[in-house]
């Protein structure tokens, strides 16, 4: 019997190396988030049905093969629902853990494996998206944090200078972990005070694309900050997100 821990090992050794670390496998421009190319990983080899048969007998290599083949599309579906890379990657892991746990359930006669898998992915992504709403930080609140930081009129009246610098460093560090274009747009907008038109000119894009980058960047930043707060008793989260801030600009 293979435990979930050994599943995690599969993800660590195969999933992350082969899928997450090779973004060229992930997305196509047409079906969702732009800029990357989806490669159909279905090449010569055992069919999904054959692999599922092996999976039912507890063959981890079959799971790895199914992941190699289908993780890019699952990730793409999750990204389309969530617009957040970290959350989408979480969903991919949940989906394949679900595939392993429920390997006895899928029956070829009911639906193609890929169809069933995509349905599972969509449901999990929607659940993830909705669970985010229950977190106390709204997108507007993160905007307020960014605005306050950008305007340097930090209203954490009781906070020390050291605390505020910690907050700035934390925010800057989290922005630095976002996709490069999102990070650049956020830094230009919030830290350098450029307007959308100026950022579009700087980045060689349209104003619409910059607005989209800012929106997705804020969402991703919010998700990162929420995760950070959940995962640690971080000073930034405690001081920075549980207290109203005075904002500098709209």
């Amino acid at each position, binding site marked *: 019997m293979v435990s979930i821990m050994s599943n995690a090992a599969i993800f660590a050794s195969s999933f992350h190396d082969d899928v997450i670390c090779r973004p060229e496998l992930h997305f*196509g421009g*047409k*079906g*969702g*988030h732009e800029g990357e190319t*989806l490669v159909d990983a279905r090449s010569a080899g055992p069919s999904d049905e054959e692999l599922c048969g092996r999976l039912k007998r507890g063959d981890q290599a079959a799971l790895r093969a199914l992941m190699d083949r289908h993780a890019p*599309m699952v990730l*793409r*579906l999750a990204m*389309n*629902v*969530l*617009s957040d890379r970290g959350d989408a990657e979480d969903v991919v892991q949940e989906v394949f853990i679900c595939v392993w746990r429920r390997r006895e359930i899928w029956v070829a006669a009911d639906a193609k494996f890929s*169809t069933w898998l*995509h*349905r599972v992915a*969509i*449901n999990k992504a*929607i659940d993830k*998206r*909705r669970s985010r709403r229950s977190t106390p930080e709204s997108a507007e609140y993160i905007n307020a944090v960014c605005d306050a930081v950008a305007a340097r009129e930090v209203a954490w009246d009781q906070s020390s200078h050291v605390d505020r610098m910690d907050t700035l460093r934390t925010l800057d560090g989290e922005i630095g972990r976002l996709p490069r274009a999102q990070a650049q747009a956020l830094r230009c907008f919030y830290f350098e005070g450029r307007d959308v038109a100026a950022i579009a000119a700087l980045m060689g894009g349209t104003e619409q694309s910059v607005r989209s980058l800012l*929106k*997705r960047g804020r*969402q991703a930043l919010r998700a990162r900050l929420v995760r950070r707060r959940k995962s640690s008793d971080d000073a930034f989260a405690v001081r920075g997100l549980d207290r109203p801030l005075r904002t500098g600009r709209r």
Partner: protein
Amino acid sequence: MTLSQFEALIARFGPVVDSWPADQIEPALDLLRASSQAQDLFAGAASGQPAERRPRPAASDLVERRAH
């Protein structure tokens, strides 16, 4: 939201949920969560090929078409 409304939404705004009109996101997600047909539609749009309805032509067909 009905399946045809959902189909129209996808056709107009694409498969990225955040690009949908804000007031339609929740009704659309309700349908998407509940309807396997909507899920298949969404997956087809995300793959860039509403392909379940339009089977990919065989390579031999393509060769034949090119020849004509």
